């Protein structure tokens, strides 16, 4: 008997003994099963800034984990060795939710980051671990592409403290041709996340010739500003040739700087550029008085002048979770 998985918009119809598009949700005896619950293939202690999350508990460590699999198949995926691999080909740790919480505490981490591949496809593991973490006073962070249906998304957001969602582009064509997905559900997920009250940041990988035209960037920025708010931190990330996109050049720093300028001109208050050395593009400035608030060097916070969530010079409230 076939089953249909309604976790994400792909709505995979899965035959007996087969897996869905994500590789990790299978039809076993007419029941939908997850094969990666408690089996992360990678776990690390990362600075929260690496997610990227620049306005959420700066300088803290996030216990970061991922299983194999993803419901998107981005040709440029930077983590394709895990996101596009099968569980049977990839060794994993045995780490049930209670062990994740224990490891998080033992490693002095403030949060758990469900990251690297796609936390949505290991949904049940993410959800159960998030519930236990919340009971233990640990924050939950999602690093996701946001390709999920509304009902499970709303349920997961109840236990989520912060998310950084990667919006891949601003056209359906880009999502279809590069990611094997669609744009609209991602936009819906972003709006729902913001409305839920969690801390939200957005990233966008700028790929030469595919989504780096000034008009595309402007369209993306205007959508973010109008639907998520101008205070939403926005990270433009540098593309490097990877996976099935090895013939394109890395994004030029000039293009990233231009994306930042366009965003600022459209009213975005906190715009960053990542995967590249940039002093201004890594720092946080007060949107009102323009003074430096947080100075960063890579993932290291050199100085943080924010006082009680506000600018110490003009008292402007700065969007974020600061302690």
């Amino acid at each position, binding site marked *: *008997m*076939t*089953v*249909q*998985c*309604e*976790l994400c918009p792909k709505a995979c*119809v*899965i035959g007996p003994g087969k897996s869905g598009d994500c590789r990790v*949700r*299978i039809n*076993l005896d*007419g*029941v*939908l*099963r*997850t*094969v*990666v*619950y*408690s*089996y992360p293939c*990678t*776990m*690390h*202690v*990362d*600075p929260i800034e*690496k*997610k990227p999350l620049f306005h959420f508990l700066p300088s803290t460590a996030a216990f*970061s984990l*991922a299983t194999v699999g993803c419901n998107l198949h981005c040709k440029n995926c*930077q*983590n394709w060795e*895990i996101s596009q691999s*099968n*569980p*049977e*080909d*990839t*060794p*994993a*740790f*045995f*780490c049930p939710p209670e062990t994740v919480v224990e*490891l998080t505490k033992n*490693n002095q981490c403030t949060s758990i*980051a469900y*990251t*690297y591949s796609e936390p949505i496809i290991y*949904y*049940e*593991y993410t959800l159960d671990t998030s519930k236990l973490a919340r009971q233990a006073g640990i924050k939950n962070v999602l*690093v996701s592409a946001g390709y999920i*249906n509304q*009902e*499970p998304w709303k349920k997961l957001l109840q236990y989520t403290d912060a998310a950084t969602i990667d919006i891949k582009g601003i056209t359906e064509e880009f999502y279809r041709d590069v990611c094997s997905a669609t744009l609209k559900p991602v936009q819906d997920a972003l709006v729902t996340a913001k409305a839920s009250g969690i801390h939200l940041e957005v990233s966008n990988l700028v790929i030469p010739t595919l989504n780096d035209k000034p008009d595309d960037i402007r369209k993306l920025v205007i959508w973010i500003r109008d639907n998520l708010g101008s205070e939403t931190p926005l990270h433009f990330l540098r593309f490097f040739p990877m996976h099935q996109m090895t013939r394109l050049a890395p994004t030029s720093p000039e293009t990233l700087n231009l994306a930042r300028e366009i965003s600022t001109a459209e009213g975005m208050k906190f715009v960053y550029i990542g995967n590249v050395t940039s002093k201004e593009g890594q720092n946080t400035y007060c949107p009102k008085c323009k003074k430096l608030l947080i100075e960063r060097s890579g*993932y290291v916070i050199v100085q943080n002048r924010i006082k009680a969530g506000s600018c110490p010079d003009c008292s402007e409230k700065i969007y974020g979770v600061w302690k």
Partner: protein
Amino acid sequence: MTRRKFIESIFKFGAAVIIGGPWAAKKVLPEKFIYAIKLDKYPGTIKPLSDITKIGKWRG
């Protein structure tokens, strides 16, 4: 066919559709799930806990 038998056959056909329809649909249409049940056995190999205190090489 008498009128009575004709009406009886219509009722029988209707009853068969009402009773058998959902059964047949269940056989043909996939059962829908949002949430999956965990499978206790991982299909790949299990590795010992190690190197988890380092910064990850993966993006994100």
